[in-house]
């Protein structure tokens, strides 16, 4: 091989590896990220780490993010709200531009996002991580004013504190009623964690009281572990009514805090309906959601199946087997960041593996977990066979206590990685 032909070969190799996309030849590529939760904040940060040349703007109208994981501890008074709140100072220090406003609309043809403050942001790639909104048409009788009387507390914040105050002021001997919707919803396992922790609170502070969960399902994740723990810890304080036992709630009546099922009416002293949910409004109005209310994405880069150059991660996305949870949103964001950096270089994203771990606290010192590993197949993410599973049903108390500590360790690690 001659010198000239060697150079030609190397240039050829470089060209094959790095076909220059149009945007690589001009200004820095622009990525706009909508949503400042576990998905969006992780995304902005890891995009900048994947390539400092990418111009990254994070759009969020909240000065601080309020985290849902461990907000069930806030409800029962074991944790203060301040421990759930995180700012964006570290993310901006790493070179991300913060647009402190709400996204109002997306023009997918022009590739622009308009904000509530009147400005418009252009993008080469847009990442939507807007989370959920309550489907106010999903539960008859339940609307936004009703949620001031019967808090859902499924978005952490004022609703969480309202439910806490109601529990604190309830007389001993009162009845707490929760309702659980059909999936998919944000972190369905947290419904059963909440029921467990409220039962723990009632047993300790208001022992003549009781909690009832009315469920639109007959089965749920980690069911055996939860039910074994309930039998052991809360035989007099927690009752689960499955769909087939008549747990399906058809409507609620606000003044009396009543849950109406096909067979019975349940009057509550404290009512906590978990209503059906869908992808947040900005995802709906952009046209990213399909008839299910969620946003279908392809599994290598989380690019929307409906609109090109827009990626959807976190709770709003419909990925296949991955649940809607903080761990999943953070894991998706890191994969999506690397994929977008590759796409901006004109390369195909690599095939990813993603992990999700959901810890649930059945009592403050009693943790259980569910873990899964995912890979792309048939246009979605599916479980890697053999890897999905719950904590052992016969684990000793020492292991339950260790998993409770690991749950807190997970929260510290993931919030440090996302915001710290």
């Amino acid at each position: 091989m001659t010198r000239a032909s060697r150079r030609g070969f190397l240039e050829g190799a470089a060209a094959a590896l790095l076909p220059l996309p149009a945007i690589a030849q001009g200004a820095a590529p622009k990525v706009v990220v909508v949503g400042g939760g576990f998905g969006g904040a992780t995304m902005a940060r890891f995009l900048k780490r994947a390539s400092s040349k990418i111009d990254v703007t994070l759009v969020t109208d909240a000065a601080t993010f309020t985290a849902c994981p461990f907000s069930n501890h806030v409800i029962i008074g074991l944790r203060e709200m301040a421990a759930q709140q995180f700012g964006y100072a570290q993310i901006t220090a790493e070179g991300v531009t913060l647009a402190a406003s709400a996204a109002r609309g997306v023009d997918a043809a022009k590739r622009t996002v308009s904000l509530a403050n009147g400005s418009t942001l252009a993008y080469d790639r847009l990442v939507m991580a807007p989370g959920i909104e309550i489907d106010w048409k999903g539960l008859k009788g339940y609307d936004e004013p009703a949620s001031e009387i019967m808090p859902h507390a499924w978005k952490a914040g004022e609703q969480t504190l309202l439910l806490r105050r109601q529990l604190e002021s309830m007389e001993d001997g009162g009845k707490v009623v929760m309702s659980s919707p059909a999936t998919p919803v944000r972190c369905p396992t947290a419904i059963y964690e909440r029921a467990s922790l409220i039962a723990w609170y009632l047993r300790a502070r208001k022992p003549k009281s009781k909690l009832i969960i009315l469920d639109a399902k007959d089965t749920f994740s980690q069911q055996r572990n939860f039910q074994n723990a309930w039998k052991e810890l809360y035989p007099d304080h927690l009752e689960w009514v499955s769909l087939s036992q008549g747990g399906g709630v058809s409507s609620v009546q606000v003044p009396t805090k009543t849950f109406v099922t096909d067979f019975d009416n349940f009057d509550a002293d404290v009512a906590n309906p978990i209503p059906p949910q869908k992808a947040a409004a900005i995802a709906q109005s952009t046209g990213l959601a399909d008839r299910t209310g969620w946003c279908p994405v392809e599994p290598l880069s989380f690019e929307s199946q409906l609109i090109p150059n827009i990626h959807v991660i976190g709770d709003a996305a419909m990925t296949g087997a991955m649940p809607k949870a903080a761990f999943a949103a953070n894991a998706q964001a890191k994969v999506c960041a690397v994929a977008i950096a590759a796409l901006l270089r004109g390369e195909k994203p690599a095939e990813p593996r993603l992990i999700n771990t959901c810890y649930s606290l059945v009592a403050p010192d009693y943790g259980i977990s569910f873990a899964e590993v995912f890979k792309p197949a048939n246009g979605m993410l599916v479980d890697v066979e053999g890897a999905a599973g719950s904590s052992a049903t016969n684990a000793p108390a020492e292991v339950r206590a260790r998993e409770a500590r690991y749950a807190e360790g997970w929260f510290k690690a993931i919030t440090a990685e996302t915001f710290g």
Partner: protein
Amino acid sequence: MTATRVSVATAVLLLMLQAAHGAEAPAGASSCTGCHAAQAGVGAMRALNGMAAADIADKMTAFKGGSTPATIMDRIAKGFSAEEIRALAAWYAAQKP
């Protein structure tokens, strides 16, 4: 000029191109830091950055085979092949602690 020299040159070029946009982590690696914080001392799990590759690979393999008791890693390790475990171990060993 031999074929070897060309392939070495190509490998160097590949490394340079990779370095230009940061070495890419193997499949699955980015999920680990959800629990195992990159920074030591954060959270309850050991940081993986800078751990010996053989140590990580041995532990993952033992978790996968069930020979080491675990709370959660026995399940997660089953999601990775021996080759994927070696790649994860090598990558984390090369990260700054």
